[in-house]
């Protein structure tokens, strides 16, 4: 029908807040599709790809990163005014990201410990997901986001259908892929049962427990899962720490982390062990 030829090309912007740019890079990594997408969409703002800057209005804005500074707060309010469709991409924008770990702690103490001249650093006390400040129309989860989901989202946008994004646990992808459950067969703690899939069950495919990059799925039963971790030998504080990762600031992970005392930087464990280190250190959790 030649849709692309007759319909005005949607204007798309990519906006970055506090983040590592990894999700923007996923867009650049779409080697097969990027040119085709660029033919059908005007990418008017994309700092990772071009120094050329353009202001709105936008038909779609992809927002990467969490709101961590007063400047970013102003920026996101401006973007929201300029965008018909505001889409958050990645764990930082959707859940606060790794930098949201500071939300549990004294902000000024962190700032003083990290920066030689903390007085030059103007940051908010907390790093918050975008949805805490403005209305978000859609979100692509993950750390980084899934290229496949990004293409699906753009395709659905262009064809006018609903994007086919999953609402199920990582377990569903594990089972479809024929992966053996690392939790049942090896006793490795895995957040897959409470985590939204989208990664293609990447970590269990490499004999690791899921880190919940894609964040909590609906009605995530973190109470039951953490009980099982504790029942099978994990100290409660370590069970809590497993949930305090990339999306730990998202509920219900946040409440569980607080409840179990897995708040980052507060335990007697010598250094903040990652979920995988913790898993590997457990009896039966070796690979």
């Amino acid at each position, binding site marked *: *029908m*030649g*849709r*692309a030829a007759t319909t005005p090309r949607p204007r798309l912007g990519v906006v970055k807040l506090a983040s590592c740019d990894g999700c923007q890079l996923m867009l650049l990594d779409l080697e097969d*599709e990027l040119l*085709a*997408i660029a033919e*059908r969409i005007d990418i008017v703002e994309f700092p990772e790809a071009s120094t050329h800057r353009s202001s709105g209005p936008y038909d779609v804005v992809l927002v990467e990163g969490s709101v961590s500074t007063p400047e970013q707060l102003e920026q996101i309010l401006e973007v929201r005014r300029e965008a018909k469709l505001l889409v958050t991409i990645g764990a930082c924008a959707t859940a606060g990201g790794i930098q949201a770990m500071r939300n549990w702690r004294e902000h000024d103490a962190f700032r003083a410990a990290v920066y030689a001249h903390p007085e030059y650093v103007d940051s908010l006390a907390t790093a918050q997901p975008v949805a805490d400040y403005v209305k978000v129309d859609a979100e692509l989860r993950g750390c980084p986001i899934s290229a496949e989901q990004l293409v699906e989202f*753009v*395709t659905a946008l*262009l*064809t*006018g*259908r609903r994007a*086919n994004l*999953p*609402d*199920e*646990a990582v*377990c*569903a992808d594990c*089972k*479809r*892929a*024929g*992966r*053996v*459950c*690392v*939790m*049942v*067969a*090896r*006793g490795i703690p*895995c957040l*897959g*049962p*409470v985590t939204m899939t989208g990664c293609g069950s990447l970590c269990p495919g490499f*004999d690791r427990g899921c880190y919940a990059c894609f964040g909590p799925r*609906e*009605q995530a*039963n973190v*109470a*039951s*899962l953490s*009980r*099982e971790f504790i029942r099978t030998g994990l100290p409660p504080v370590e069970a809590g720490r497993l949930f305090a990762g990339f999306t730990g600031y998202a509920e219900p992970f946040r409440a569980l982390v607080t409840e179990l005392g897995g708040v980052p930087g507060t335990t007697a464990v010598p250094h903040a062990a990652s979920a995988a280190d913790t898993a590997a250190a457990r009896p039966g959790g070796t690979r």
Partner: protein
Amino acid sequence: MTTVTRSAIGFLPRADFQRLIDLLSEDDRTVIGPTVADGAIVYGEVRAVSDLPRGIGAEQAPGSYRLVDRGNDLLFAYTVGPTSWKRFVFPPTLAVSRSHRDEDGHVSFGPVPKEIPKLAFLGVRACELAALGVEDRVFLGGPYTDEDYRARRTRSLVVAVQCAEPAGTCFCTSMGTGPGVRSGHDLLLIELDDGFVVTAGSPVGSAILDQLDLEEASADQITAGSDQLAAARQRIGDPVVAAGLHDRLMAKLDSPRWADVAERCLACTNCTASCPTCFCTSVSQRSDLDGQTSVTERRWESCFTKGFSTVALGGNFRPRVQDRYRQWLTHKFATWIDQFGTSGCVGCGRCITWCPVGIDVREELNVIAPPPQVVLGNGKGSEAHSPRTSVFRVDAARRETQDTVTLTLSTPSGIDWSKLHGEFVMVSVPAVGSVPISISRRLPTGMELTIRGVGPASTILTGLGHGAEVGLSAPLGRGWPVDMAEDHDVLIVGGGMGLPPLRPVVDEIIEHRAKFGEVRIYHGARTPGDLLYAEELARWAARGDLEVGVTVDRADATWLGRVGVVTHLFDHARWDGTKAIAFVCGPERMIQATVTTLALHGVTSDRIFVSMERHMECGVGLCGHCQMGPYFVCKDGPVFSLAQLGDVFGREGI
């Protein structure tokens, strides 16, 4: 069929097992069987004996699976792992169709061409064979069929291996699917210490068996195979009482346990994905950027996800995890039977082992829908009571007719017998036996029983005099739902000995007369001499607020009343059946005629209650004699609504 070939039951030494793999691999067939990968025994390609899990077993418990090295040479000494054969006949993702819209806007739809592999499934257990049978019914039972499934299924050979190592999560015995292999296989292997007893289950299997050209298995080897099976069966036990599970489960849709299990359930979908019979799918579109070419992709889905039951505008029929768990469990064990004529569960235990938090479906079933208890109900409602026998004494014996006597019985137990529900008692006479007798009047200290002497026991009972003792069970069975008749007109029809069971109904109505509308009582007897409670009928009629009609089949010189069958008393009368409830008791022929007349007057089947007669032996639903369709007359009846009986009522030979 006339000649038994030398290889009907062959023995394949383990050292020769590669020959079987090679034979199965002929014609570009891929052998799929047990292999060790990622800490489990999973089904993968098997080219050589060395691919098989020699000496490897698996310890399984709710939420736990661990490989163990058993240090022997057995190739199939494990129980089912995470993979099921479902994956090979019903792929997790499948491109099902393609659509296209060309530059001119014309659309076309078509299939996605695909190559269906030829496979041989090696190591299929009895439960897994049963699961394939269940899937056959689901996908091929019609009216619509899944032709992709059919193609994969028919292109697959099935080599079953008898189960020798059941896991701690197995319950095939309860579901009636194993551990013995009965049918559905091409070949069956029974693994012994030094090799395999091999039999064929199909012509294809026979051909392979012939090609193997085996020595005949010895009697000892065959016996060893049977012993192995018996041992496996004994190890599994019978963890779930499957009999009656459908009804027990469906009666518990409001169980508090659903919320309890939802508190543990992760809704992670591992149970449904591991299940060898769960068949739900979703489809999605994969299109190019312009939406011109699109492939419809089907993938395994689960009733545990939100999207599974979400409708347009975001509404959801099963918003809570407890709703979803209930859907899964009741479908698997109950409504599946309604849909496909078979349970959806084969007892393989995968949903138990592979649940990350170890929810054990066996335990949930036993809590939610506990198996029937031997001790009957506790006297609440119209539940049956414990059948313990109490001693009663005859206080009075009143002769009603030539062969019929009403005994007044009491016991000094202190129990107010008039308050006990139940329709009949089992009356026991030492050395003679027990007979079921309907209660014809409830008294605080006991009851009245009106008994016609027709057999040895009842004849002895009619001969009992003051002071004689008999044994009585507590009242049993479900009686007349008199409370339902409140605010209704009531029609009571007793034919012959059908009147005594109805007398307590009349008593209750008289006691609370204002609660009921017009009340009509009709009694028919063979002859005037067979009329029961003649004086009492006259008293009832004299009250003025009860209409009483009496008729006899055959009159004599003294009889001035009505003659004819009992329906004649009310079939021409002008009365409105739409507000009436009817209680009918008597010979089955009489009940049928009455029911027909009632229907003509507008009494619907849910308002017609009948008491059915069957051979009652035990009175508590254990001996099986009184079955009537799905019911035990003693336990579920003897009083039923006509609607409840459905087309069982009046059917010959039921």
